[in-house]
């Protein structure tokens, strides 16, 4: 390709394309930098739209407010899911892919023109889907289960967006090849890039699943295909729908490692273990289509048990490993930096006023405790009978993709702004509070949605008072309380989200340019005043004493086991079925 060879045109050309980052010493390719900016900006725009729509959803489900009418509610709910879950997250992930390949590997980006084509396709696709939904004839929810039908533009927009994302993945793979060929780094790729690679490999699988089901569905909506089997649709659709959430997991775990590294100089405790954990994601996460089909007719129990558990919980094992190695790496780094007193000085004196770190650590905790545990319980074959399609499901995934992925990406933004956009962060005090407001808000949303779900409340439901239904039913009063609390925490999360958008947009447009000596607020946190105990080389006995991390994972494990078995106890009280 012309673009791929153009970059090889002499050293002068190469020199002009790069700048050297004053903070990290990395060489930054100008084309990669512009593309990272474009994708990050698009991501924030769709987050603002999706987040605002989410607030409308929460205020409608709060029965005391009950903001929207039924037609608008279902339309807004469809648009909320697609903008927040697909467009915001995938645009940001493309930015992460370009960063983790070109920037971290000191390389030029392969085929920047293709990357721009990908960007245009994604933007056109995203606008097309939004247009279709706004017409009011495509309120089919994010999942668009057949035989319910949306307008052809809805499916076409999704297909275009997916093709764009696929091209972006291949630009990422191409950049890895270029970097290796041009020897821009020594040895193996860094862990962060490895995590991004896992995300990109899963993305290819995911997009292929999407193509396999969305292209025939598009043709069906045009009338060229007569029938799409509803169970088959779900099986393949969730090959995209759930596996794409594993792209998010891989990407945000990579971002956790990235922030730990840049802010605290954290190194993985063991490269081998962390990489194997990513490998588990690649090998097993795509089985998770089953998570959405545990109470479906027509699938065998054997298939459900094997797939829902990712072949004996091997992908869960991957996440549990990261859940230990990420805080472990941070504890080791902090101890090395001199915070060696007691079990938790390293955590107490962590840079909590640095929004990148605060967001990252909150994301880790909320993802693990709320998202991880609830996901495994929800995905246990028989337990799913008590939770399928209740609000427990959105409760679970708001912990994973909002408190987990979205918060991690927000945290990463506080590094991207000074390092890539090269602007001093505006309103630093607001930025400092932002991750807490958003994290607590998102945590509350997931907790209270899960609470309402445990009480049986249906998801995607406009009116749980059933006021205009022929037969009535009263959910317990506590359910209404849960949904009111969900509304309050959604407001909190919206404030946090709005602050993020304001800080980001203001910084990009009006922020003071970062000088050649680097940003005024240093990226990496200050070490302790006394560093007598600091050791020179990582891996020495002193740094691998991680009592704080062991306490944290023990608490996590006990919570996990107790909650898991409590749910089996609830299940045993249900009407017997076979």
């Amino acid at each position: 390709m012309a673009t791929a060879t153009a970059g090889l045109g002499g050293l002068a050309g190469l020199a002009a394309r790069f700048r050297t980052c004053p903070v990290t010493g990395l060489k930054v390719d100008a084309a990669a930098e512009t593309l990272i900016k474009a994708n990050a900006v698009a991501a924030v725009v769709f987050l603002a739209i999706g987040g605002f729509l989410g607030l409308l959803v929460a205020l409608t489900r709060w029965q005391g407010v009950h903001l929207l009418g039924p037609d608008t509610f279902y339309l807004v709910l469809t648009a909320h899911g697609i903008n927040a879950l697909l467009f915001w997250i995938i645009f940001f992930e493309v930015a992460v892919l370009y960063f983790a390949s070109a920037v971290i590997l000191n390389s030029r980006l392969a085929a920047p023109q293709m990357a721009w084509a990908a960007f245009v396709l994604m933007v056109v696709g995203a606008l097309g889907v939004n247009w279709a939904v706004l017409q009011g004839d495509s309120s089919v929810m994010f999942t668009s289960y057949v035989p319910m039908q949306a307008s052809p533009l809805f499916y076409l927009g999704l297909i275009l967006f997916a093709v764009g994302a696929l091209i972006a993945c291949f630009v990422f793979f191409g950049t890895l090849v270029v970097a290796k060929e041009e020897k821009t780094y020594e040895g193996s790729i860094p862990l962060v890039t490895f995590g991004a690679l896992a995300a990109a490999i899963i993305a290819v699988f995911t997009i292929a699943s999407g193509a396999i089901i969305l292209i025939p569905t598009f043709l069906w909506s045009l009338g060229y295909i007569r029938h799409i089997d509803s169970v088959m649709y779900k099986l393949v659709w969730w090959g995209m729908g759930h596996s794409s959430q594993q792209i998010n997991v891989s990407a945000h775990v990579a971002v956790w490692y990235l922030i730990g590294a840049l802010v605290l100089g954290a190194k993985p405790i063991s490269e081998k273990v962390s990489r194997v954990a990513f490998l588990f994601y690649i090998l097993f996460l795509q089985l998770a289509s089953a998570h959405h089909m545990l109470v479906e007719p027509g699938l065998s129990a054997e298939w459900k048990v094997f797939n829902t558990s990712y072949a004996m919980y091997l992908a869960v094992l991957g996440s549990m490993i990261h859940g230990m190695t990420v805080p472990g790496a941070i504890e080791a780094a902090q101890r090395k930096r001199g915070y060696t007193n007691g079990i938790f000085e390293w955590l107490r004196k962590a840079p909590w006023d640095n929004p990148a770190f605060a967001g990252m650590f909150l994301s880790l905790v909320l993802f693990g405790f709320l998202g991880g545990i609830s996901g495994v319980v929800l995905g246990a074959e028989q337990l799913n009978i008590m939770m399928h399609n209740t609000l427990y499901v959105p409760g679970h995934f708001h912990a994973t993709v909002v408190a987990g992925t979205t918060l991690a990406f927000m945290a990463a933004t506080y590094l991207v702004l000074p390092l890539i956009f090269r602007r001093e962060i505006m309103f630093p005090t607001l930025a400092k509070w932002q991750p807490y407001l958003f994290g607590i808000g998102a945590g509350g949303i997931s907790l209270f949605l899960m609470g309402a779900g445990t009480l049986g409340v249906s998801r995607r439901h406009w009116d749980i008072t059933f006021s205009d239904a022929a037969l009535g039913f009263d959910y317990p009063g506590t359910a209404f309380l849960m949904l009111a609390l969900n509304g309050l925490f959604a407001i909190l999360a919206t404030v946090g989200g709005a602050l993020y958008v304001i800080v980001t947009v203001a910084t990009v447009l009006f922020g003071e340019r970062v000088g050649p000596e680097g940003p005024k607020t240093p990226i990496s946190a200050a070490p302790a005043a006394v560093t007598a105990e600091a050791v020179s080389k990582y891996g020495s006995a002193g740094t691998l004493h991680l009592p704080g991390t062991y306490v944290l994972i023990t608490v996590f494990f006990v919570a996990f086991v107790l909650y898991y078995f409590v749910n089996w106890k609830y299940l045993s009280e249900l009407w017997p079925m076979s």
Partner: protein
Amino acid sequence: MAVHPPEARIWWNEPVPKGELLWVAVAFLWGVIMFVMMIWWHLEGRQNLSTEVYRIDPEVFRSRVEAFVERHKVGEEGTTGIPVARVPPGGDAYMLGRLWEWWPVLELEKGKTYRLHLSSLDWQHGFSLQPVNINIQVHPGIEHVLTITPTQAGVFSVVCNEFCGVGHHQMIGRIRVVEPGTGG
């Protein structure tokens, strides 16, 4: 750092710290336990989803449900006009989902075991039995036969919990469970 290539070029031969290894072992074993739990519940547990499933034309299912109602109708639910079918203890019960109702209302006896036939005539629906909290997906063209034993008497509602269009939130059905011998 995690943004640099591994310090040791041959990183895959480096020893893993003991604490980390222990956690990996604990997490792996926990996974095995959770895996076995699901299998064990199939053998010993009493709440497992039936895998008895048939392909069926929605029109055929509709006529079967209508014939069932014809045979077992004992009245109507309040003023709604929805028929109430009293199912013979241990017999076959039918309920269909369509935009936007569950039909008919069923009357079952506590402690008796029934074969409940579920299917949809149009889109997907969600059979959410409340407040018991049993949730099962219902597809058009597929007849799902559950063997189910009510253990409480009372009035139970079937909320549709799969989005099925703008009348979704009005779609609600009913199952009445009576003490043995007190029916009708």
